[in-house]
């Protein structure tokens, strides 16, 4: 018997890296229609967009790629006048979803993150160690959404194959 889990490499998402003072960022984001998450390492999700609070003065906005142009216009990454920094990083990540009965087990192989509810709630979203490198882990219906730096995407695919099939 193997693991009951479905692992899918995701198509591209629109992703923005946001840094700055919390009040400034809140104002900048207001345009997008999302409010900032209230607890560290949680995400505020709405209409397919996820605004993750991933570090002190640091957020990551994930949205469907169809929204990318619109977000580029609204967020104006090149504009520094807003006293915060928004960098367009859609291409900088490779994303996977891990879903199914054994999604928790797969995550426990990939990451030391303690995913017990009290530690990583339903809106949990955090950077952690993922197969030895830095990776984003976000709760997802029936499992998790994960993202790693794009250049590591192939390696993560190999890892997933290995742990689900036992192939060396």
């Amino acid at each position, binding site marked *: *018997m*193997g*693991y009951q889990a479905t692992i899918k490499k995701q198509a*591209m998402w629109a992703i923005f*890296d946001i*840094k*700055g003072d919390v009040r400034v960022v809140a104002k900048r984001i207001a345009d997008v229609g999302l409010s900032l998450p209230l607890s560290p390492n949680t995400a505020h999700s709405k209409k397919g967009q996820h605004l993750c609070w991933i570090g002190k003065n640091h957020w990551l906005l994930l949205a469907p790629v169809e929204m990318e142009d619109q977000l580029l216009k609204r967020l104006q990454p*090149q504009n*520094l006048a807003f006293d*915060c*920094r928004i*960098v*367009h*990083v*859609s*291409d*900088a*990540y490779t994303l996977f979803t891990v879903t199914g009965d054994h999604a928790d*087990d797969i995550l*426990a*192989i990939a*990451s*030391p993150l*303690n*995913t*017990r509810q009290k*530690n990583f709630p339903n809106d949990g979203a955090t950077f952690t160690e993922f*197969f*030895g*490198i830095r990776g984003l882990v976000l709760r997802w219906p029936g499992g998790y959404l994960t993202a790693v*730096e*794009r*250049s*590591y*995407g*192939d*390696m993560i695919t*190999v*890892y997933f194959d*290995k*742990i*689900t*099939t*036992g*192939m*060396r």
Partner: protein
Amino acid sequence: MTHNPFRQKTGGRIDRNSCVEFEFNGKRYSGYKGDTLASALLANGVFLNARSFKYHRPRGIMGASVEEPSCLVELLGADAGGNHAATTVQLRQGLKAKSVNCWPSPNFDLMSINQLFTRLLPAGFYYKTFMWPNWHLFEPSIRRAAGLAAAPGDQIPYQHFETRYWHGDVLVVGAGSSGLLAALIASRSGARVMIVDDHPHPGGCLRSSQSKIDGRPVIEWAEAVCAELDANPEVTRLQDATAWGYREDNLLMVTERSPAETHVFQRGWKARAGRVILATGAIERNLVFANNDLPGVMLASAVQIYYHEFGVIPGRQAMIFTNNSSAYSLAHDLQAAGKMIAGIIDSRSFEEIGAEKDGLEIPLYAANQLKAAHGGKHLRAVSIRAADGSIKRVDCDLLAVSGGWNPAVHLFSQARGTLAYDDALASFVPDKAMQRLACVGAAAGKMNLALAMANTLSTVTTCLSEDNFKPPAFSLPSCTTSPDYHLQPLWHVDGMKPGDKAFVDIQNDVTLDDIGLAMREGFDTVEHVKRYTTAGMGIDQGKIGNINVIGNIAMACNKRPDEIGTTTFRSPFTPVDFGSIAGQRNGATVLPFRHTPITQWNKDQGAVMYEAGARWQRPGYFPIVGGNMQDAINAEAEAVRYAVGVYDGSPLGKFDISGRDAAAFIDLLYTNDFADLEIGMGRYGIMLSDDGMILDDGVTFKLAENHYLMSTSTGFADVVFRHMEYLLQIECESWQVWITPVTSQWCNATICGPKARDVLEALGVSIDIGNDAFPFMAMREAIVAGTPARICRVSFTGEVSFEINVWPRHAEAMWRRIMEIGAPFGIVPVGSETSHVLRVEKGFLSLGHEVDETADPYDLGMDWIMSRTKTHAIGRRSVDIRRSSGKPRRELVGLIPKTGGELVPEGAPVTPNGDRAASEGFVSACVWSVVNKQIIALGLLTNGRARIGETISIRDRERVIEAVVTKPCFYDPKGKRLRG
């Protein structure tokens, strides 16, 4: 029909309907499903099944579990290898095993000739001899004789090892009575629980106990508890899994040997719990008398396990030798089974022997000691020494020995807990815990079922309350009472003579004499004795014998055992496969690798891929038909010098740096000035470490006021990021600077060569790329071939270069377009070997070559990069201090070696006059220059800049190569081409 002469007609938990065939030392036997290899061998009457490590004495099975010191086997066939204790090998159809360390068989072992020389082989004998003519003469034969099994093979291609984490509230080690009770209470409190047990079945010593809990046989109670635990989704129960290491913050390393998932061979758990409950039980210890290693001598508890678990009594006439009450239960078992018992020898006085003897109708030799065991290849008789010294000889073929019990404190001790010596137990028991853990039951020194259960209940309840759980009301199960545990220490029997083979460490063949010798020679601490005699350093790590080493040292120096102390308890508790530690990290995933969108294209072209730093894979060169590596490099280099080449520069580190203080921050990082940099322009900079050594170099562009794009070398991008974040978060906390790594948000194709501009034009570009509109070191945003791009005019080749940066989603298409459009211009892809050649021709420095952790920018002739005004730049002060000593420096020079066309190995030292003496410099890079049509080199040479024109000597071992010192630039020294 299975012929098992020593198997009882009934009893045991083996499946008598499933016969299992196996092979041992080339002979076929059968046992039953549920047997271990050890129980099956004993059932078959195979008692001589090993030879000892040093003397090759005949040995049998002594224990029944992980403590087994004696019978180590090597598995053959599909899972070949290893030194497995026969007691831990589960019998299965077709199992093949052989004894380790004897040849051709344990019954007839050629090396048993060693027994004739035992007198010459005391502890440490090798330190005193084998010196003449030298050790090397003897080593090969000794190495062949040593070692146990052959190294394992690895023939399980479709299964792998896995490691995973577990996070929970309570982790219980041991599924005996105390462990099961602890897990039950914890799970009923709502805790997330893991319980780990190294046997295939739960129950621990309950499995060989006649006691009752709540009126039921104990094993039924254990099964009921397991059923409840298994029904709780918050409980993970692992059997055949060993908790072998106790790390910081309650992290336990567990190896699970038979996971449910078929593709997983073994699983290593890294389990971290808020509280650890150690219910690891106790391990029976041996007694020290002459020939205590003869086949037929076994631990009393082991005999009980073979009887209850496997229905095996490995003898016809049993004798028991004990110094404590626990062995009497074996006597009761055997008597009830109607088996012959020759008697019990108890070193305690008759008065000390309590209720344990009640009901026994066998000879009791109270206050007697067993002087020696007799027999050749198997026990035939024992001599009993009475208190008055008289000797009586009694025949027997099974001797069950009990020296008392040691709490299994291994994990407790690994967790840095302190031990105390308990006089009543004559053993070390847990004292002060140093982590959030508790020991319960026998592991805490409670050697009686009822006491152990009561102790577990109260301890676990207290722990759970401390951890903010509400333990349920729980009434202690009623247990049948057993006699109180009582023991009189007996470190060795009286009347031993020098030369008696009384073993304190069976596996490593260490005798009581050896301890005496060690102490006579000055090795009088326990660590010294261990290291001199090797006692306790075997695979079993002295589980049944170490206490006797300590006791005998104490006795010899007239001290208490706690004044002697124990040796360190080191992980692992029992040996575990390395695979279960590494888990899935193997093969292609052992080190992360990184690809650009062009990697696959490169591979498809047959590029030879190199590790290029920071885990990136990059083409080294593109082989050409009918040419060697040098030909390929020459072709690529010529393309760049005379036509056009393209290079995938995507792995270069890139950082978006902005914020109010970004300009000041850039100024702090680099040794040169950036304040006057114009928007849209870039500048080359060098970063130093605080030690004043070059950390990295690269070009930084100014995108806007207080907005920069910094590029770093591929290999040092992470180091630079750490350096910058450290400064910002710790030393410049009030500064407003935001850094976002964008290495993977931008890919670049660098088109370089005299026809680079033509190719870019042909691609279609939305801006004027003429030299006036778009000068060297400028950056422009433009549409290239219909794709938005950032174009940078930097050059690492000395030619006109356009670095076309696009989003990775467009990178492969852009690359293919460049190759297509560039074809008529003669474009070729360029690997890192070629960029090395082009760089050396220009005298551009390179990390790992000219920059070798000793050079500063002055050494490299870059005085201009050390700003006159910026004394505060990182590393500046250290450079100044180092140079203030006036010691001669090694300076960058060019070298024209006189080799007649052969490359000089990079790194070759330069020595004065070519002598075999300390070097005065070295060759940092050497290539065939396509423009100069000769070998050129760069080097660091003491006072090199003053020596231009001089001939120096490079020394490659015996070979001396002369070279002329030149300026370190061999091509276009004024830089007209790259600015063109």
